[in-house]
């Protein structure tokens, strides 16, 4: 790798690493610390092929690697997560907004990893159905159905109290 490659990689990190880390946290449902480990590991792959891929949309390559790693990590985390994130019974009620958000995040974490990844990419990253499909290596139809089913599940679990959600 040339010095110029190295400098470009640093620039790439400065511009993208926070966004990738956030994506990883959301997709994998992990703590920041665990997600950092995962992102570093994924970005090591990017670094390994950097001189080859830097001129060819490294951003989408990196996002794909990170999302895939986060999905596999999420699958392995599942059981422990449910223990770790189990809500203490007597949490004092916070403001309704905060509480709603927390519940949404809890329900989001309960979804299967790929379904959750679709929701994160579609609604948080604001990718199109096509972009999401390309990134996840599946069809647009799958993205559509996974997004719809994910939303439906969340809605169903929240609906007893949150009838307001459309």
């Amino acid at each position: 790798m040339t010095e110029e490659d190295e400098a470009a990689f640093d620039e790439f990190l400065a511009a993208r690493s926070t966004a990738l880390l956030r994506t990883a946290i959301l997709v994998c449902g992990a703590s920041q610390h665990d997600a950092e480990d995962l992102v570093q590991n994924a970005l090591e792959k990017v670094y390994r092929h950097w001189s080859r891929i830097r001129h060819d949309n490294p951003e989408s390559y990196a996002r794909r690697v990170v999302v895939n790693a986060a999905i596999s990590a999420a699958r392995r985390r599942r059981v422990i997560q449910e223990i770790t994130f189990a809500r203490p019974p007597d949490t004092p009620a916070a403001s309704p907004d905060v509480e709603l958000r927390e519940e949404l995040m809890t329900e989001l974490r309960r979804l299967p990893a790929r379904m959750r990844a679709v929701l994160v990419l579609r609604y948080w990253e604001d990718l199109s159905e096509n972009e999401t499909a390309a990134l996840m290596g599946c069809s647009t139809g799958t993205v559509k159905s996974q997004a719809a089913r994910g939303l439906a599940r969340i809605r169903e679990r929240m609906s007893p109290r949150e009838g307001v959600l459309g």
Partner: protein
Amino acid sequence: MRLEEELAEAMEAHVAGVRATPAMGGAIRRRHRSHRLRFRTAGVALATAAVAGAVPVYLSLNAGPPATVSGPAAQSGQGTAVAVVPDVAVPEVVGMQTQEALAVLEAAGFKAQIEGDGGDGGLVVQQTPAAGEKVAPGHVVVLTSAPPSPTADPKPTEDAGRGGEDRPSIPDDLGDLGDGRRFGGVEFTYLPAGLQWGEGSVKDGFGKTSYSTWWQEDGLEPGMYSVQAVVYRGQAATELGRRMKGYRDQGARPVEIGGERVYIVRAGEDVGQIEEEGTPTAVWTESPGLAVEVMMSPDYYARLGQEKAGAELKRIVEGVVPGR
């Protein structure tokens, strides 16, 4: 408000405070340089690779076979893998922070349940089954957690934690092997000059029954390898046969060395995958039920240069004889 928007806002709020550390570039380059044993074993450990970065060598080794022995089919249904995989040893987690213990057990393929006053913020004072006991992957390890005493050593700083990575506890399942040339019923009569035994070994880390050890150049940190060898017997040899067939399907052709048909490939991190910049690897069946794999670390390979490294790899293969 629509659910999509509520959800997007909740996600945004959840990660708004997260910033990647500026040190990430350094950390990534360190990872890249340290082609540790575990990176090679990450190929075996498959899905555990991401987490394995933070755990000692022997954990990634132990975590490996469960995920892989039954092939790609096992990845979709976690339950199906469990029925056919060999038992693995429970890692020692007593004395760790609960969270750390969870991560370690998870990386090793176990589930965990926390009991006791410390909850999930305490210290692990007891574990069942005990460390070293062999149980099926996915087994629930019950941890007894005690509240951390105020005088106890606080959780080491992040840096110290990462420093710990440089001192992995090296497994030595096969005990003192002397020069490491005789194990698993075969003998490695040739090794490149300047390599010493890595003073560690693993039993059944690559499937049952398998034996592995490695050799290092001078000055390499413990747990890193220049050349690593695995001897496969029984079920593990059968699995390796399947992997060789996979290499063949990807276009690899065996070369004849010392009368054996040897596949020499660059093995990627995904099991059975050939990858342009993968680990130089030779695999062959020595006799029915006995197969051998020799891997050269990409660093060592680069240092020797392609031609010399290739020749050395062949000489190592040639030098392998059934043990006396």
